[in-house]
Structures are given as C-alpha cells and as structure tokens.
C-alpha cells in the first residue's frame, strides 16, 4: 500500500512553499523521523521529517520547485512492514489530512453558535457600580491587566464602569489612570431593567470604536473593503453634520399633476433640441426660485454671523459607485429649465465617471436629494454643511386626496426639508416650503 507524503504547512498562514532540497531518492528506505526534504518558507529553510516507515516509491515534485501548494502530494512511500490486514489502516498522512478537515468542520460548526451568543457589546451602558476591583460585570469576566486591577483597587475605581482601550477591549493602565473613583458607594440594588446610570468616566475621550469581533461578528465571515477617499469624506462629513448641526425635518405633500402636464408640454417643445426636462430639474428650478423669495432659507451659519447667499447654487446629490457626490447648478434661479436640464445631465454623467472638477461640487448653498426613482415615499437627508437646508424628494404617485368632502385621486409627491435650526427656524422653513408649493403646484409661476 503506498502512502502520499503531503506538502506540510509549516505555519498557519502558509499556502505554498518551495521544495528546496530532497534528502532522499527513489528507492531509499526511510523511517519515522528521517529528514526527507527541506522546504523553504519565510526566513528559514525547514526540514521535513518522514512520519512513516517505508521505501521511497516516487518523488512527485522536483527539487527547487516553487509554489508547491500545501497538502499536495510531494512523494510516495510504499508502506512496508505494515500488516496489510483488510480494511487497510489509514496511513498517518491520510489521518492527518482527515483530521485537518475535521478540524475545519468543527470550527465551522462552532461558528453559528458563536454568532448566536455574541459577547455582550461593551458599548452597552454600564451596570451600576459593583464593589471596587471586582472582576465581574453582570456575572461575566472583566478583562483588565493585572496592573489596571491593582491601580483600580488602590484608587477605589470600579472596573465595570470603565471601557478598556486595550486589545479586545481589555482595560489597561492608561484607562484607569485617568478615571476618577466613584463618588459614592454603590447605589441600592436596582430592579432589573431599570435605567442604567451613566458611567462615572471623568472626561469624554474620543469615541471608542470596537472591532467587529468585539461586537460578535466572527472574523472571516465578511470581506473588508478598504475605505477610499470618498467613503472617508462621506463618513466624516455626515458624522460631523449629524452630530453637530441641530437639525429638524419639515414634510409636505404636493400635488404634481399640473407639473407633469407642464413637463410634457415643455419636453414636446424641446424635443427637436434633444433636451428632456426631468421632474428633478423642475424641483431644482422651483427650489432656486423659492430660495430667492425666502432668502432666509438660503443661508449658512458661521460663528461670525449668518451668511445670506446672493444666489441659489443648488447642489444635487448624485449616487456614484461606492458613494455619492453633489455637483452644483450655479445661480439656478436665473437659469431656464432647458439649461438646468442640460447642465444636470452633464454633471451627473461626469460625476459617475469621477470627472468633476472640485469647483463643480464645492460650495453650494442648498441641496436637493431625490430618491423618488427608487419608490421612496419620504425621507429626511442629513444637512450638507455649511448649507442651511436640504430637500429630500420622494416618489410622485397616485394617492387619494380629499377635495372638500369628496375623495379624489391625484399624483402626490412628499418633500421633506431638513433645516439647520441655527439659521432656518421652523417658521422660515415653512414659509420656504409654502413658496415652493406654489411654484410646483402652479408651474407657470416659475417663469415669472
């Protein structure tokens, strides 16, 4: 019975290696422990020992062969001295292989269980302080370095109130050194489910980001796409805005049958020119005109004062692969629909090809984001700083509307204005929306 000698994995990450040297040749007798080959891995050349007795039947990989995959057969041994009793005993190398697979299965089998019982995310609010230095949090082990425990004990700091900055959220010296001892003894026991107390952490440090693994997502269960510049910019700007700008939404429903009729007429007129005006182009135009009528809504907050913009430079959100960008229709209030249509088409196209120049997407005074084409009814966008407001446009769809006491059907579109309360108060936003409604519901007024 012949046995395959497999390319060994000399490190957990090794996928392939070079067969640097054979120490045996065809026909040689080997016994367990004999060096049969040298495999070149990383910094070293490692020796491979036979795990079985026998005669070298064949060398399957020539000396010097590079890129030999782990677990591919590199030689054949004839298993002399083995009793050939049926059923044949699996050879050690086969056993090893089987064990390897079994291990993998075992690991895979274990994963769902791990997912099912994720470690409690340390981001949950801490429980009431337990006894100082006690290494339990809800009966679970708190990971802290010995030195951190010692210092916490000396200073009377409750470890369960501290979030660790070490590997896997472990509490280390630096975490306890800055912490203040709990002001009072542990409060009386609280009923389960009671509001947790804020943690007595001295100063709010930078936001701790836990790894996915710490939050119970098994490594290897996802692919990591590195953050590109656009993703980083979106993440930073949106986080800053959502956290720092006091924002609120105002929603209205608009009937757009008149607008759609006007659009059909306009497009028929423009057909020879090859221009097609979209509902969004009309929304941009109407928003720009409304901003001129209610200039308080066309403003930016600065620490020095409120900047009242002279023109309505309307940014339109364009989805591009792996992100979005907001090219700007400058001075849209003075542009005709055909011009806006031509410009928006060109900008959107170049945005998708990442061909925009910075001056084409930096410095708008107001934004329009439209998800109507995806059937979204209504939503509220995040302010695009330093703009004072952003308009979110939903789908135009037939809805029942009340006309006096009669029920009728009209094409209705919901529009939400998210306002920066530092510049656009509720009433200002409402006045802007009213002006916008007049323009949309009676589109001829846009031209005036």
């Amino acid at each position, binding site marked *: 019975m012949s046995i395959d000698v497999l390319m060994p994995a000399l490190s957990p990450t090794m*996928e*392939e290696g*070079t067969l640097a040297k054979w120490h045996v040749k065809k026909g040689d007798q080997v016994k367990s422990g004999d060096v049969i080959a040298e495999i*070149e*891995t*990383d*910094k*070293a*050349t490692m020796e491979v020992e036979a795990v079985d007795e026998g005669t070298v039947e064949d060398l399957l990989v020539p000396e010097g062969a590079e890129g030999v995959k782990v677990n591919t057969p590199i030689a054949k041994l004839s298993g002399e001295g083995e009793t050939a009793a049926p059923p044949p005993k699996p050879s050690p190398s086969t056993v090893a292989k089987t064990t390897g697979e079994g291990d993998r299965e075992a690991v895979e089998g274990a994963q769902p269980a791990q997912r099912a019982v994720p470690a409690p995310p340390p981001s949950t609010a801490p429980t009431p302080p337990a006894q100082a230095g006690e290494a339990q949090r809800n009966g679970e082990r708190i990971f802290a*370095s*010995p*030195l*951190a425990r*010692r*210092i916490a004990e*000396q200073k009377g700091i409750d470890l369960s109130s501290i979030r660790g900055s*070490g*590997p896997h959220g472990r509490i*280390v*010296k630096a975490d306890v050194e800055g912490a203040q001892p709990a002001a009072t003894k542990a409060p009386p026991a609280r009923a389960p489910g009671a509001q947790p107390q804020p943690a007595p952490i001295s100063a709010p440090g930078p936001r701790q*980001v836990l*790894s996915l693994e710490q939050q119970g997502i098994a490594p290897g269960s996802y692919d*990591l796409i*590195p*953050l590109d*510049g656009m993703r980083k910019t979106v993440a930073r700007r949106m986080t800053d805005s959502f956290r720092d700008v006091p924002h609120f939404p105002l929603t209205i429903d608009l009937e757009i049958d008149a607008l759609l009729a006007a659009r059909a007429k306009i497009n028929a007129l423009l057909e020879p020119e090859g221009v097609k005006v979209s509902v969004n182009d009309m929304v941009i135009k109407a928003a720009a005109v409304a901003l001129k009528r209610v200039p308080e809504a066309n403003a930016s907050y600065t620490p020095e004062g409120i900047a009242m913009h002279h023109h309505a430079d309307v940014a339109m959100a364009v989805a591009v692969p792996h992100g979005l960008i907001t090219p700007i229709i400058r001075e849209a209030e003075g542009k005709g629909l055909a011009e806006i249509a031509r410009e928006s088409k060109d900008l959107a196209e170049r945005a998708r090809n990442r061909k925009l120049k910075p001056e084409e997407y930096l410095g708008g005074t107001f934004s329009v984001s439209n998800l109507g084409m995806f059937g979204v009814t209504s939503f509220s966008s995040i302010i695009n700083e330093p703009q004072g407001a952003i308009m979110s446009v939903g789908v135009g769809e037939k809805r029942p509307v009340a006309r006096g006491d009669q029920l009728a059907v009209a094409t209705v579109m919901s529009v939400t204005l998210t306002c920066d309360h530092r510049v656009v108060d509720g009433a200002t936003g409402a006045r802007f929306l009213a002006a916008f409604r007049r323009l949309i519901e009676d589109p001829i007024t846009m031209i005036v």
Partner: protein
Amino acid sequence: MAEDFDVIVIGSGPGGYVTAIRSAQLGFKTAIVEREALGGVCLNWGCIPTKALLRSGDVYEQLGHLGDFGLSAENRAYDFGKVIARSRKVAGQLNAGVGFLMKKHRIEVIEGTARLEKGAPAPKVVVALKAGGERAVQARHVILATGARARTFPEIGLEPDGERVWTYREALVPKSAPKALIVVGSGAIGIEFASFFRALGSEVTVIEMLPRILPVEDEEVSAAAHKAFERRGIRFRVPANVKQLTRSKAGVAVEIEAGGKAETLQGEVAIVAVGIVGNVEALGLEALGVKIERTHVVTDETGATGVAGLYAIGDVTGPPWLAHKASHDGVHCIEHIAGLKPTGLHAPIPGCTYSNPQVASVGLTEAQAKAKGIEVKVGRFPFRANGKAIAAGETDGFVKTVFDAGTGALIGAHMIGAEVTEMIQGFALAMTLEATEAELQATVFPHPTMSEAMHEAALDAYGRVLHI
C-alpha cells in the same frame, strides 16, 4: 493620475519588508523599493551576519575550556576565511528568504534608488533603476524605511577606509583577524565586535567616551560586563576621548585623553562604532517640507511626517536603532493607515547585546526609574546560585528586576549571562501585559532552567528569594 499602488515602502530592511508584508495582508497593493539587497542592513550587514560570527567565536572559545567539562581536543584552530564565508552564507540565505516572502505576498520589488517628488495624494516616487533608466510610481501612501548607517568623524580620522579603519560593514568581511584591534565606542555594535575578535585571539582595546561601557544599560550590568570582558582579556579606556586617529602602513595610532592624561594606543585596525545617522539624504525630503532633526525624520507616533501621504518608520526616525522596533513601528503605521486601531504602541522595546557574556534588558534602569521620581523595589539573582547555570558552567552574570513600589508594576529588567537574550522576552511579555510582582511570583518557571533566576529576581524584590 491613477495610482499604481496603494502603498510604496522605500527600503527593505526589517522595518520596510515587514511593513510591506503587513500592508499586503491588509489587502493593499504594495511595492517595495530597495537600492541594495533585500533585508537591508539587518539581514545583510548587521544583526544576522554578526550573530553568525559570534557563534563561531563562542564555539572556538568554548574549545579552549574543554578541560572544565572533562574533555580535551588538540590543535584548536580556525580558518578565518571559512568563518567569514559562513556568515555571508547565512546572510545570503535570509536575503533569499525575504525575496521569497515578497513573492509570496505579491509585493512588487523595485530595485533602484528612490527619490520623492511632489505628488497627490502622496509624494511621487521616482526610482533610478538598478537596471538603468527611471520609473515614476504613484501610490496613495508612501512609507520611508530607509534606515541608518554608522556615524563617522572624518575630522579626527574616525572614518572607514576598508583597510585600517572599519565600520561594522568592513568589520564583517575582513581578510584576517587583526592582531591588535582598537574599538571606538562601547555600545552593542562595538562590544559585539570586541567580543568576537577577542574570542579569536585579537588583542582588543575598547574606548568609551561616557563613564561606563554599554552606557544605555543598567549601571550594575555595565560594571559586571566590564569585569567579565576584562577577565577575557579585553582592555578598556573609560571614560576617554579620542583626539586623533592616524593611520600608517603598519596600523593605526589613536591619541586619546583619559582622566586628563594623554595616551596613544597602537593597533593594527580600528573599528568605529560611535553612533548612527539616519539615511535622509538625496530623497528629496527638503523640497517636500519634511521635518528633519539631527539626521532623523520627525514623525508623530503613527509615523506621519506631516506631508500628505508620507510616513516614516524605523531607524530613519531615530533611536532606539533596533530592527524589532522598526518592524513594530511599521506594522503600527500601516495598520493605522488601514483604519485599524493598532494596540501596543507603547510596548516596551527590549535591547540585546550578543557578546560573551550576553546582555539583555527591557524598560527602565534603576537609575532612570529613580530619576523619574518612582519609588522602586529592586530584586537581583546571580546565576552562580542557579542549578542549571552551574551544571552548564555558565555561572557568570545575574538577573535584576525593577518594580514600581507603589503599584507593583514591573518597570524594568536587566540581565547579563549566557543566553539571556533568549530570556528577556519573558519580561517583555510581562511588561506588555502589565504584570505586577504577583503574576511574576505566581508564574511557574521550569526546573532546572536559567530562567528560574528571573523568578528569583522577582521574588527577591519583595524579600522572598528562595535560593540565596
């Protein structure tokens, strides 16, 4: 301009190539530029080939003491050419190993000399190719890992010529062992060469400007090393200033001043080991506005230089000039670029000197701790009271521990003796995990090993030592 790579690393020493591997592991398309040999100074002209030489020296020296072990051999001799050849072969093997690793991780190796030009989002890398011609490559991130080289003082003759005056580089490939060697500088490099050539029988004199040899080590270790080396026949001039080195056909004459007295030392060869300067020249760093202080690139703790997309790690950023520090820095830097939250930024960095006896340390010396106003508890244990050391005939040296008396944190460990360089990582691990005396005292150390001296030194600091 579309980027050719996500990351370009300049320099393939232990800082650069490890950074490149980690970069590739993180999914970045990575290239590495090397002007000389993969592996840099460490693999080719530093850490590794010197260890090969020192091993030959140690074995040869042991042969001189065979009688202590009840053994004898005749005609002890060495073939210097073969000793050097072995050292080169070892370096060559590791150099090839790095090449293999680059291939395995699909890292493109660009052979040539790099310089930087203004570019976005990172400086453009222009490589004067070894094969001729130029290649300009653009990456999102450029990491400088250009390393460092020996400092020289040409104005007083401390400048290598390959014949009479060597730096570490010439000292690795001499034609023969000098009969009389003068080593200027008693840091790790100077001491290792002194130890090696002394083992082969050279008359060795070491000159140190500071008050003690191995000046970065704990004072007690310096003193013990001084005594041990003197017993092996190495002579010292400490503290002494070199006034002038003069070379002649016959050798070198080094004029020194020690304790107000002038003296001239005669030797066949001198080795200059008086410090390190960063490789910051001809890279175009000034034009980019990179801040350089005393030949080293200034960075923040993530390696950022302040120039968009440009980072620096390892020896070129300053002391300690150690391979493992460079690798650690590099991994930290690239993980930071990848948006991970790397840990271990302030992990203590052990230092090792592979002389006979060996010296190893991590963390603060007793004097440094006291200078910081820390109240300390100090433990010591000599190898002459350690069973394994006695059995092995390696009773020179000791282990010293320094604890913060207030918290019990281990803040420093210092060792001198046989194979202590293989033991220091026990203390490094303890410090990285923020161990206190309690964990060290509760850890089981296998018997009989020399590492039991580590346990005893931790016990001794708290008056609990068992075997003295």
